[in-house]
């Protein structure tokens, strides 16, 4: 598992680096007082602030490093491990730098953004800790393409059997297959929304009009077909409907797994959509923080 080896890289070497950094920062912080009450503008404050700013820049460079496959500057895994532990340590360093003073200003904005970046990073660590196993269990060891291959096969059989049934059933099943929705927008992917539809062409239920009917989780179309089974006039028709039902139920199961797969994959990736933009906003706020500190000092 990638996250395990990332956290336990080189015998948690970078955990100890982080702990050492926090301990050194606390010692440095405690030397403030008297003439220099703890604040960001004492020499200790400047040292802590510089360490924090350099750390943030270095942590950001992970995004550059992991794209440079030819780089020899340590393994990506080593960088990622250090990124995690030093990224957590930077919260302590920054808190000691600002000496627990928070106000409605650009300096606290930088701090809040930093905390948001770290929080999104922690979320990333957590999803990497829990979701890969669920993802793997849901795929039953296979790949997503296998799930889709299964679905395509079921669609093919569904269409084939439906073609042998009466036109209303045929239209309903064919439309249910074609109007099956998977994924969609970011929110739809993350909550596993199902906005599938099917079309009913029989006039008895729809008041003489064609109806586009919601087919969430495929249950409505299954119910529709199941409802026709007892009314089958011929034995072959009943057998076809039975076979069709079986295929539709198998298809429902496959679709559930695909949606869960899309959802888990989305959750596994969504934190980066927060982590990266917030990091860049943090860099901007950090520059503003440093610049304005010296403009009005």
């Amino acid at each position, binding site marked *: 598992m990638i996250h395990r080896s990332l956290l336990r890289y080189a015998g948690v070497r970078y955990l100890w680096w982080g702990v050492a950094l926090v301990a050194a920062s606390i010692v440095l912080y405690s030397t403030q007082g*008297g003439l220099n*009450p703890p604040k960001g503008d004492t020499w200790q404050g400047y040292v802590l602030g510089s360490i924090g700013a350099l750390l943030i820049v270095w942590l950001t460079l992970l995004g550059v490093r992991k794209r440079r496959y030819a780089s020899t500057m340590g393994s990506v895994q080593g960088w990622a491990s250090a990124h995690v532990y030093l990224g957590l340590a930077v919260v302590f360093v920054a808190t000691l730098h600002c000496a627990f003073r928070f*106000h409605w200003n650009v300096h606290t904005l930088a701090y809040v953004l930093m905390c948001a970046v770290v929080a999104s990073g922690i979320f990333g660590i957590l999803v990497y800790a829990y979701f890969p196993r669920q993802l793997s269990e849901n795929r039953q060891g296979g790949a997503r393409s296998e799930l889709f291959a299964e679905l395509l096969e079921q669609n093919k059989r569904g269409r084939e059997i439906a073609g042998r049934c009466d*036109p209303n059933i045929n239209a309903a099943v064919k439309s249910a297959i*074609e109007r*099956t929705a998977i994924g969609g927008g970011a929110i739809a*992917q993350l909550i596993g929304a199902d906005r599938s539809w099917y079309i009913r*062409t029989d006039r008895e239920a729809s008041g003489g009009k064609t109806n586009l009917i919601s087919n969430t989780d495929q249950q409505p179309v299954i119910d529709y077909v199941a409802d026709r089974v007892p009314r089958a006039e011929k034995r072959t028709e009943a057998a076809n409907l039975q076979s069709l039902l079986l295929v539709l139920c198998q298809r429902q199961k496959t679709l559930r797994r695909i949606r869960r797969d899309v959802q888990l994959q989305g959750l596994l990736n969504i934190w980066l959509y927060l982590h990266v933009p917030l990091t860049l906003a943090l860099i901007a706020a950090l520059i*503003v923080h440093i610049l304005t500190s010296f403009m*009005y000092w």
Partner: protein
Amino acid sequence: MEVLVRHLRQGPDGVAEFQDTQVSSAEISVGSSADSSIQLLGRTVGATHALIKGSGARITVSCLRGFGVKLNDKPIAQALVKVGDTLEIGGHRLKFIAPPGGFDVAIEVQLDSSVPDSEFEAAFITDLVRTGLSKRAASWMLIGLVSALAFAIPMATIYLHRSGVATPTGVPDDTLWTSGPLSAAHQHATGKKCGACHEQLFVHVRDSACRNCHKSINDHVAPDRLQLTSLGDTQRCAQCHREHDDGASRLIINDDHLCVACHAGSERRFGTIKLQTVAGFSKSGHPAFSVQLQKLRASGGDAALNPDWVSERLPLASAFEKSNLKFSHLQHLDANRVTKAGGGAMGCGDCHSPAADGEHFIPVSMAKTCSSCHELNFDPQAPNRQLPHGKPIEAMMIIEDYFTHKAFDPPPVNQHTALRRIPDFARDPSRDQELDACTKGPKECSRLRIDAEIENQFARRGCVSCHVVVDTQAKDVHERYQVTPVRLGFDYFPEVRFSHKSHRIQGKLTGDAACESCHAARRSKQSRDLLVPDIDNCLDCHRDKHSRDTTPVKNDERKITEKIALQCVSCHLYHPVAIISTSRGMEEK
């Protein structure tokens, strides 16, 4: 509108067949999404590709941005359609046919058979990358927001402020750059305009910005004196006065190190200025106290009578008050010798009233303090006749007038009960009787009596009991006796702060016991005794912040539990104030 959608397709037996569906909607959506009114599959078909809307004969087709639609083989973005027209979308053909009764529009759909049924899977968006989410766009947006709101707009407001324009409501200004809240006074004085103190960007707040308002503040060391030392330039105001400090230092950094850094090395660093070394508040770190007293600039001649007082600083141990007053605290506090009018011994508060500042005392005066016991009558037979205080010549004249009148027009004998004057230690009753029994003429008798009483007052009892009287031996009796002016110390430590108020209760001691724990009044027989305690007395209960010894003195009657830490600025001022007076003459002589 009511739309008939007719799908044409090849039946299983090879015969063309159609399937009609009816759609009732304000507009018909065409695309690959599951909820499209007409679903078309294919890689070139968008989720919502085109819209058909209108009513009656006016039906329009509009193609959504980024997609392609052909009307009668010509690409269009939007067009009116009529019966017989054919749309082509992704290889599929949609023909507008004459609508049967009850329908507004009828569309015949001929699907492109070369598009496999499985094409609809291509429309699935199963990856966040293909959604509207974009790390890059979000990053740029946030960078833009932060840069604009936190930097660019506040920066612009600086130039607005400089041109005298206030920040428009709701616009973020440079107060967002503050490192913490201003103290209330500065917030009020600057009107929250950063530029009031931060006059120039990237430059420390200048002292001149402080002095714009704080005009009367004095330097700790005057510039000419500073040149005598090796201390260098005066520190910036902001070195000690920290603003935006969250109330942590209450605007003043009052750590002892601030003072001790220079004063511990006074011998090395103060050049020709001689000051005692101070390393803290302890027996070894702080010099013994020295008091400021008044002394006469010149001696001899009439210096005693027309004094020119100058301040003099003396070690407390060898300092004596020169008040020209005769007074014994011991005697006044002894119940066997002095009692109050209502009975009982006198206490400190009977004479000493604290001033409103909590530090000083209202000066003792004859009128306010002494006269309740000490009357100025001079003839036991006329106890209501009083001499004026502080006016010796007038007093002599009253004596002359009184006894002249008495000699020529004597009052009835024993008309009044003789009252005892306090103090009365020098009066000789036999001499009074002898003078009363004078057998000479009234003029001679009154002269004798007047001379005797003036001598009595100025050389034997009366005024001379409390005051220093100089006998000039002048022939004119009015010139002969001169009473030396009284000058009581008002403030022995003018540069030092001390709160008598907060020392009214000391541990277990209150009232006079608290006063006497520092001021040894019961042992003082003379007015020259200063009664001011030296540093040892303070160190019984106090220490400096860095001293770890918090144990109070054993067997101390105050029984405090722990020594209280003092800082330099608890007693000393950094910025010297103009000293009003170290000594005040009695308001009433």
